């Protein structure tokens, strides 16, 4: 039985790199910590949820509110999708919404667009845990993975904005798992968590990371900011042995194509990249890392 990887290795069309074959693929470099970025990222994510929780429970006013609307040290932060929905539904443009979106824009311009998804979003964290179960079940051949069209998220974005305009209500906010979990963290559980659980079960048993990969329109706004953000995953052609394990752990594997597969770009330029760092962690060649596009040379 030939695996996919064997097929690719045997064909001549696969590029070979300078470093390829010089090093055993599975031996990490000395000092390479397998889960370094995941530990940092999860700590940040859980700490942010704790700050939300603490603002109400202990009255520590650093980060008040929930992920749809909050105040960071008094500065408004408004989730762009929620803000657009509100404007379309109420037909009023509130100055606070603009300020809140501006804050979000600046923060994620500095920290890389969809980093919201992997570094802040509580649903992403639950989905990552679900993904572990999904992977186990799949190696045991109990379940099969099903992919969807990756563009559904954009259709959803347009549909729900349209629905807000037509119905005069923020329809998506009723089923938005991000704000449902965020509210549950701060104000206690609600019945809507059952919907979140349904989504998770769907991801575990039917389609790997379905919500984050194909459906979630919340990330689309952050994606747009990410197009401009210089913080990106950097790929080192010299070090890469082209093992493609990075793509096996990636939430959106296609974003690595331009680097690892075709060698066209030194940076992961796709806005879909969540800067989660899983590829950095798994790379034994140390070929992947965080970088600042445009600014690397200045520094």
């Amino acid at each position, binding site marked *: 039985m030939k695996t996919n990887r064997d097929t690719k290795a045997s064909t001549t069309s696969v590029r070979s790199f300078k470093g390829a074959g010089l090093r055993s693929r599975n031996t990490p470099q000395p000092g390479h910590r397998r889960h370094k970025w995941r530990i940092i990222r999860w700590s940040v994510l859980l700490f942010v949820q704790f700050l939300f929780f603490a*603002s*109400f429970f202990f009255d520590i006013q650093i980060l*008040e*509110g*929930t992920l*749809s*609307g*909050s*105040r960071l040290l008094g500065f*408004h932060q*408004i989730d762009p999708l*929620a*803000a657009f929905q*509100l404007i379309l*539904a*109420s037909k*009023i443009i*509130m100055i*606070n*919404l603009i300020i*809140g979106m501006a804050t979000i824009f600046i923060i994620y311009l500095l920290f890389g667009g969809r980093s919201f998804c992997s570094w802040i979003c509580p649903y992403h964290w639950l989905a990552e845990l679900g993904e572990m179960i999904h992977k186990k079940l799949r190696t045991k051949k109990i379940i099969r993975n*099903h*992919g*969807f*069209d990756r*563009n*559904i998220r954009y*259709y*959803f974005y347009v*549909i*729900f904005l349209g*629905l807000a305009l*037509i*119905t*005069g*209500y*923020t*329809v998506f*906010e*009723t*089923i938005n798992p991000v*704000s*449902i979990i965020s*509210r549950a963290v*701060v*104000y206690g559980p*609600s*019945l*809507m968590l059952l919907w979140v659980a349904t989504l998770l079960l769907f991801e575990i048993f039917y389609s790997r990371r379905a919500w984050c990969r*194909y*459906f979630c329109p919340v990330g689309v706004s952050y994606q747009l900011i990410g197009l401009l953000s210089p913080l990106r995953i950097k790929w080192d052609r010299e070090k890469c042995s082209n093992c493609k394990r990075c793509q096996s752990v990636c939430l959106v594997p296609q974003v690595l194509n331009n680097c690892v597969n075709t060698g066209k770009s030194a940076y992961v330029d796709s806005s879909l990249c969540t800067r989660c760092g899983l590829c950095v962690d798994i790379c034994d060649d140390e070929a992947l890392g965080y970088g600042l596009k445009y600014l690397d040379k200045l520094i």
Partner: protein
Amino acid sequence: MAQAEKKISRRRFLKASTFVATGAALTYGAVSVPLLRKKNKVLLRPPGALDEDLFLASCIKCGQCLQVCPPQVIHLADIDQGFGIGTPYIIPRRGGCILCSGLPCVLACPTGALNHHLSLGKDAEMGIAVVSSPSTCLAMLGKNDLLFRLEQLQQHPEKGDIVTELRDIVARLAGRISPAEKTKLQERFSMPEISESTLPQLIAKVKLSDLDWLIAFVTGSSLAQSGCRVCLDECPIRDEKTIVFEPKSETQEKGAFFPVVQTSCVGCGVCEEKCPTPVASITISPQKKWPGKNKDHVGEGGQST
């Protein structure tokens, strides 16, 4: 060959699933809005809330109003409340809005769903208090509220935390009786004097065995003649009378009065919270507004039959 077939079926699956997903989103929007809106109960919103439709459109469901609420009376609606999942509302029987100065909930609202033009609690328009159950209203019966609560304790000793309730009654009692009666109370609980500062010591001495004596004491005191005025006494609006007690002419009962809600009532819900009858005799009609606030009072309008 098999692989090509697989590819085609996969493409078909992708296409079909996209249709299903977008269709589901559209159907959800089309179905949920009318369905849930019909089911929607009328909820009491925090002060300054816009008209319900606009409020639902502009509330971002962040819960910041709830965070800053000093008496912590704001709750977030769940799916069982219908349409406005995550929107703030007040359950008046559990705790009414005290219209605190500065209205922090209004200031905290990032979207203006709680209108920032509202600066004084007395200008809020949350709803209207209605004497919903005149037959149980203690003022209508000419009954004293403390005496009623003591009797309730005697009749239903199994309900709730009796000692706390009893102590609360005694604390209120001490503030309302005449000096001569105060001496009687002092003797009973062997206190040198009863004042604000010694009140905690007094209520610490109250035990369940004092219940019968207390009932006899209140019945014999001047309090027994004065009917319940709790709704007015607890009302957070102080500069205007929100409830006027009009003498009941048709009955000869002594001390029986008819509570008439005035247009100065904003529907905060404190009267419903504090009403001593087992089921509140005065309740809030949420989101109801006075038809033009220029009238003196609406007379029977404030009363449901």
